[in-house]
């Protein structure tokens, strides 16, 4: 089962290395990992998606907590979080296919970020599932390149971790 772990860490050189090293050393699998600074410039938030059993996730949390530079760790409940991923996707496009592509973009809420005589580049920020759906819909048009950020997430409501 996929689970989302939100980790607040000291914003210092080497911290990300410690986290990824921990994952490989303890044989935990990472689906995605996204990192960025928070409103407090001394703190970064790392959002990690893991695909493991519950007992493994508990170990992941505990092992992360052991790292001196990790301030807080919380596994987010899927029903009470806002999770988003950004994808930039480039497909082949010409006069014939452009309209069809635009229709799908409208349905999925993707924006056109760049256009050329032979291609279109779209951006979409949504849940990983919906991002997957959009990618699936673009496949028949010949996808040239895809970049995804991995999901970032916060819990709903006024609470914070």
């Amino acid at each position, binding site marked *: 089962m996929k689970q989302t772990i939100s980790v607040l860490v000291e914003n210092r050189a080497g911290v990300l290395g410690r986290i990824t090293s921990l994952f490989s*050393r303890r044989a935990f699998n990472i689906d995605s990992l996204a990192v960025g600074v928070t409103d407090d410039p001394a703190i970064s938030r790392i959002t990690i998606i893991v695909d493991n059993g519950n007992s493994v996730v508990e*170990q992941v949390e505990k092992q992360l*907590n*052991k790292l001196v530079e990790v301030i807080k760790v919380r596994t987010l409940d899927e029903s009470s979080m806002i999770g988003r991923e950004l994808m930039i996707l480039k497909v082949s496009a010409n006069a014939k296919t452009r309209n069809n592509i635009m229709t799908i973009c409208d349905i999925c809420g993707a924006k056109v970020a760049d256009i050329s005589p032979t291609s279109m580049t779209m951006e979409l920020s949504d849940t990983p599932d919906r991002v997957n759906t959009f990618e699936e819909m673009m496949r028949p048009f010949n996808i040239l390149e895809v970049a995804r950020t991995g999901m970032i997430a916060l819990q709903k409501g006024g609470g914070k971790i």
Partner: protein
Amino acid sequence: MEMTGAQILVEGLLREKVDMIFGYAGATICPLADVLRSTPQLGYTLVRNEQNAGHMASGYARVTGKVGVCIVTSGPGATNLLTGIATAYMDSIPMVAITGQVPSHLLGRDIFQEVDITGAASPFSKHSYLVKDAADLPLILKEAFYIASTGRPGPVLIDVPIDIQEQVVKDVSFPETVSIRGYNPSVRGNDKQIAHVAEAICQAERPVICAGGGVFLSDAMLDFETFAARTRIPVVTTMMGLSLLPTDHPLNMGMIGTQGNVCANKALAKSDLLIMIGTRAADRAIFSPEEIQRRMPSIHIDVDPAEIGKNIQTEIPLVGDVRVILQQILKRDLTTRCTPWLTQLQERRKEELNREYPVRAGSVFPGRLLRLLGERLQEKAAVCVDVGQNQIWACKHLWLKGGRFLTSGGLGTMGYALPAGVGVKVAQPDRQTVVICGDGSFQMAMNELAAVRAGNMDLKIVLLKNGVLGLVNQIQKTAPYHGPFGVSLDGSPDFAAIAAAYGIPSITVGEEGEVENALDRFLAEKGSCLLIAKVDPTVTTSD
């Protein structure tokens, strides 16, 4: 106050009450060496390979409870030390390792003797620092000693580029205290859980205490003994828990595990409540945790929350410092009802302790020798044991009156015992200290006889010589393998001549009838001595 980075490092070490450094010189650590040169109150023990600086610091830390300190140079000095760091990490030994590093502006260029040592040590160090500004050093040192020695102890690495050691810092001030927001080890146990524990202990009919190295690490030996004596619960230990109770203590049922005592394993298998104290229940101690889980509920007391549920699921987890928790439990009513169970186990234990040892002409049975050795040791003696058959034999047969049993339990590092013994001797020159090695493990560290010699130490070294890497030999002779390979120690030297070359006398014993006399002469020797005991290579750890 204006100071260089190197001066700050040395002043910081003195403020942390460090009195001994285990180290090896090198180019990138020269600024620090230059300050050490004029700091005679800081002792210095020169090793012959950096790995052994780690083991010496470990031996030193384990008998003093203080943080062991080693200082080596960059590149190969640092990589040699890695095994020492990993060994300390696996046994949770408080240690601060300082490595020299190439100039900071050249980091990442692969220049002479550069290696990313904080990266390399990351999977098996508790924390590490790559120092970028000498002004950070006072805080880094304070943090490093705090992290190394609190919670679950472990090695902390500080990598200091040579220019940072030379950097002049104005207005240096040393922090008195330290607080790290991401690091708050638990100390007190949850009161509700303590109540559960006391209740479970009182209700159990066949409880057993399984104690590990954590009891030593939290300096809880006395509280532990009180707890066991008050409850009359039989005690089994892991390898790291050996010497918590004397071998013939009425509650001591021996060591558990695949290589453990029969009585201890029976006690564990038949128990109806397992009380784990300061142990991670690793594979060598508890071979099939699932089976134990199925058979009985357990209480798990450990300072590291990540150990709870890592190897074995537990009914009552209790996170905190073992000593504090034991004191909390001791305040409760502990009227147990396990005396019949204890009596039953004691019968079994007696049989095991009174076993007869086989006699083979032309060799010495290691079990008998170790038992006779143990009987002759002083009560507080420290025994440093290597890895291989010698370790298993010592665990099973060495008679302990208390004192300390030191070995590399987690990583199983051959060559640990001799340098660890040096570390003990440096810390406590008057403490009787014995090293037990096989001829494989001895040859991994015998260069440190130089440290024994240089320190003019009284270190007694027992070499169980059978010409083979015995434990691996045993494994290779067992299915699915087809026979020994690469385990015969051909080309081994004349060990008596090796010792003599370092000015250390030796005694060789090859007949059972000579053992007692040889042991008496060995222990009576004024300074260091090597006892070479000829062991039949076919003797296994189950004999």
